[in-house]
């Protein structure tokens, strides 16, 4: 039972390059989320999805796009990477939405933009 798997685990980009982070879950969860974690800032929500084919903006969505073409996958794209997007990105999923639903997190993807 893999849970939530993120790829890649590490990536270094140059400013202006694009890339996609992949999140896959095998728990048949409806909801999926992308957070970023920066020192002293905790976790901030980028985008989330409440089901296949749906996406919604979180607290810090600018510079990112997402897609949920399949229920088990949630992709996070950076169209034109900037140094401010250097961060650790976490994907999470949950069975339902709302405060009573427990999130299962991936191990994180560390992105450095030079």
């Amino acid at each position: 039972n893999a849970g939530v798997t993120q790829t890649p685990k590490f990536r270094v980009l140059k400013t202006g390059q694009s890339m996609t982070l992949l999140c896959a879950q095998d728990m048949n969860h409806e909801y999926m989320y992308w957070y970023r974690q920066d020192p002293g800032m905790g976790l901030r929500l980028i985008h989330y999805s409440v089901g296949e084919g749906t996406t919604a903006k979180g607290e810090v969505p600018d510079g990112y796009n997402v897609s949920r073409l399949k229920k088990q996958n949630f992709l996070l794209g950076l169209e034109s990477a900037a140094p401010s997007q250097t961060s650790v990105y976490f994907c999470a999923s949950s069975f339902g939405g709302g405060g009573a639903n427990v999130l299962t997190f991936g191990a994180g993807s560390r992105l450095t933009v030079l």
Partner: protein
Amino acid sequence: SQQGEEDPQALSIQEGENATMNCSYKTSINNLQWYRQNSGRGLVHLILIRSNEREKHSGRLRVTLDTSKKSSSLLITASRAADTASYFCATRPDQAGTALIFGKGTTLSVSS
């Protein structure tokens, strides 16, 4: 903006001591969750407390919730070196979308 704020930001104790972390939040909630993050790893759910509960226990963990003060505390009793981690509270504010919002966390260091 952060919904929850943990206090203290950092805490250092000896093995065997108790560790208490606090979380304050801004708007009314139905539930509050605590998560742990070991260095370099993803977050792991520890415990959920509902707004109609004052206290909840899970092993060496004790969580309290005071909705009138909009605050929660996490107590880890008889700490072990393996408890060294960052601890986050998470809430979903009423009428504020679907996703959990996390605080900035308390970093706990337990030395042997």
